[in-house]
């Protein structure tokens, strides 16, 4: 069993981090400037998050209507480790823990921008009483 037991929980907590990203002055502009739209296709639990960084729009599961340039396939645990700041993205791609469909360069442009959010993700989990997920 992975860190997340349901897609609903994942959307609730991982979803908040995207909302926070687009509310953070300085970061919002950098994310918008990338113009990248991507979709996270997660397994265990099965869940999908689509993010248009250019427009600052996030959609979940069956509500997704946006077109994206990049699809990323990974387990929910891999995504969780990324947000905790414990994932080496280039190595994860090399090991196929993250499968990239589309431009790897766009992923490499985005990943370092997320660094300030790792602490905030941990705070979200702490506030929800989920310290055990931080490890």
């Amino acid at each position, binding site marked *: 069993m992975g860190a997340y037991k349901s897609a609903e929980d994942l959307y609730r907590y991982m979803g908040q981090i995207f909302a926070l990203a687009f509310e953070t002055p300085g970061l919002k502009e950098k994310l918008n400037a990338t113009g990248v739209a991507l979709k996270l296709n997660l397994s265990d639990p099965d869940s999908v998050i689509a993010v248009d960084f250019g427009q600052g729009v996030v959609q979940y599961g069956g509500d997704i209507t946006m077109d994206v340039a990049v699809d990323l396939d990974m387990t929910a645990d891999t995504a969780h480790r990324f947000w905790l700041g414990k994932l*080496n*993205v*280039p*190595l994860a*791609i*090399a*090991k*196929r823990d993250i499968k990239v469909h589309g431009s*790897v*360069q*766009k992923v*490499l*442009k985005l990943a370092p921008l997320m660094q300030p959010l790792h602490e905030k993700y941990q705070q979200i989990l702490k506030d929800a009483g989920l310290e055990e997920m931080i490890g």
Partner: protein
Amino acid sequence: MADNVVQKYSEYDHHAPDITLENVHRSWDNLRAQCPIGRSDAYGGMWVVTGYAEAHEIFHDPETFSSTPLIIPPFPQAMKMIPVETDPPDHFKYRTLVATPFSPRHAEKMVEPLRAIVNKLIDDFIETGECDVYETVATPYPTLMGTIMLGLPDSDAKLFEDWTHKIIHMSATDFEVAGEAVIELYSYFYALLEDRRANPCGDMMSLLAEAELDGEKLTDEELMGFCLLLLIASIDTSQKAIGSMLWQLGTHPELRDRLAGDPKLIPSAVEEFLRLWAPVQPARRATKDTQVCGVDFKEGDQILVLLGAANRDEREFPGAADNVPDRTPNRHLTFGTHIHRCLGSHIARLEMQVLLEELLRRIPDFELADGAEVEWSKGQVQGVVKVPIRFTPGPREGA
């Protein structure tokens, strides 16, 4: 800035687009004459070392001057390059793991394979009377040598050259392209190491796949750190050193004729080429507040050590700009010194010696082509990267 010669340390940027073969050494000489260490504004501020004694002192104190990061700005590498970007005491353990294949005894075994590669490459152009010898020899020769050393298929040589070029020469200008090359390189070696774990065959990759530190197998991060360094260091640095050597020979017929007429001079001549054309300009980071030759370094300061400049310091090398093929002593810093001395130095020397022996035997009258445009590679691996030559055509020797 007359002829784009750098006048002040504050202006110095090793990636500046206007660095050329014509001004690179004049800039370094100009800066060193002012002071052997100065402060540049580039990349958030960095110290730049141009003096020999100062570079030597910094290299001999790896506890105070960490080799992480080695590159300014860093490659998009995700993991330290091992062993060069590790510090004591870990450094020794890592280096020991791969030391044997790079020993002088093992290097000697490479002489005949090297000679075969060189002669095959010369066969490919000797009937034409002209070529860009950087493209025909300096580029493929170290790559093919690297494939033998590392146990990689030579059919992938172009791939290795492409990754190496993007990582070393595009990281400062196009981080994403370089990053993608790093991932492709990691993916390639990750799959190769998986294969070697299942089918060990005694090559370098098998050695790494089976290596243990303190009773534990190396982690994926450590393995990728080794692979990145082993590949790019075996290719790009030698290409630039060889390119510069061939350019100098092509423009100095008296030197070329002297070596062609007295091949026993070649080993010491190679040392002199290495001194004059150090390709690698490595970085260091101060781990604490300290002082070198009256300059105060603060903890965290980054330092670019211009070995190419240190090797032309008149205080250590009288007549430093001159090529003296039998120069003695010749304590150049091209391979670094102390604990980070280049593991591949023995192989690199042999590569250059064998190349000179065969090239001067088969096309002893080669010279730079009329009106040839020469290119200089900037950044932290520097050298001449375009050397159009002409020569009296000769016969192929291979089948």
